[in-house]
């Protein structure tokens, strides 16, 4: 019995496949060049592709400069955090700026009184966007131990300015403050330029 091939000729197919191989062989006589070879070498070494948001947030999060603002007891834990033992410069924020215009973060290290409140508001307003506030210590969160002295003490900084991260404790240990700062970094990483809520 003669076997009738289903297709006109399998050998044709074989030839076709062979041709593809031949073509490819003919076309591949040179190694392929780098797809971004059109870039100049200098540029090429320095480009990574990512989203704008991730890029900007990374940059912002890595250099949060705190304002030099030290109202009360908590300030000494903040200073301890900035000094060599806890070394906040690991997070790119060793520079405490005396001018609020150069600062990104206000660490509210101490009790806020009504007499001080307009000044705090002013410091906050002077800080350039983007800016964040970290309420440090029970006083910063809610007035803490002095909350019942309502004639003088503001029950928490969030009466005056919006607060991003709350770190309770009286005073919080430097480790707790560092943890709060890491949380702030996470918050910054979630921000987006499109939504204006960083």
């Amino acid at each position, binding site marked *: 019995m003669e076997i009738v091939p289903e297709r006109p000729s399998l050998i044709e197919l074989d030839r076709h496949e062979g041709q593809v191989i031949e073509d490819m062989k003919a076309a591949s006589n040179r190694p392929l060049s780098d797809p971004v070879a059109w870039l100049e070498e200098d540029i090429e070494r320095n480009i990574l592709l990512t989203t704008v948001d991730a890029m900007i947030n990374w940059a912002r999060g890595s250099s949060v400069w705190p304002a030099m603002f030290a109202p009360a007891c908590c300030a000494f834990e903040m200073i301890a955090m900035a000094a060599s033992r806890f070394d906040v410069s690991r997070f790119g924020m060793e520079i405490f700026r005396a001018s609020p215009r150069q600062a990104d973060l206000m660490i509210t290290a101490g009790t806020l009184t*009504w*007499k001080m409140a307009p000044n705090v508001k002013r410091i906050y307003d002077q800080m350039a966007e983007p800016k964040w506030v970290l309420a440090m210590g029970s006083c910063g969160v809610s007035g803490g131990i002095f909350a019942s*002295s*309502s*004639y*003088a003490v503001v029950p928490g900084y969030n009466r005056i300015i919006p607060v991003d991260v709350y770190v309770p404790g009286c005073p919080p240990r430097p480790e707790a403050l560092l943890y709060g700062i890491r949380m702030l970094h996470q918050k910054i990483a979630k921000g987006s330029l499109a939504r204006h809520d960083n």
Partner: protein
Amino acid sequence: MTAVLSPRNIADRLEKEFPGSIVSSDDNSFEMNSTFLVPAARFLKDTPGLDFDFLSYITGIDRYDHFELVYHLVSLKHNHSLTFKVRCYGRDNPSAPSLTPVWRGADFQEREIFDLLGVRFEGHPNLKRIVLWEGFDGHPLRKDFLG
């Protein structure tokens, strides 16, 4: 040890010097009539043997019907101390003479008492609120302060 001078003795001496100046005296302190405060203070400061050159502190207490001012003097020269009190009456405008001309250490403390208790010190060079802001309503250390 800082010797505590007997308030009775000092009170007697003051009474002799300024008749009518002493209201009462006990083992811890004596009470003086506020009109004699400045001359008596000068006497305590300048009399040899007393030489109270250091005004340690002043404070005020609200006793409802009057305000009690407490003065604590120390002599660095002889290392002895003395406490005396002055009363001022009235809740609207209690007042006492200022001791700033005698001891300048009284300056901020009197301003603080004025601020927190509302006692006026006549003759104080710069009597205004010290810790609270101008326009604050009331004097927090008064017992009837609502806050």
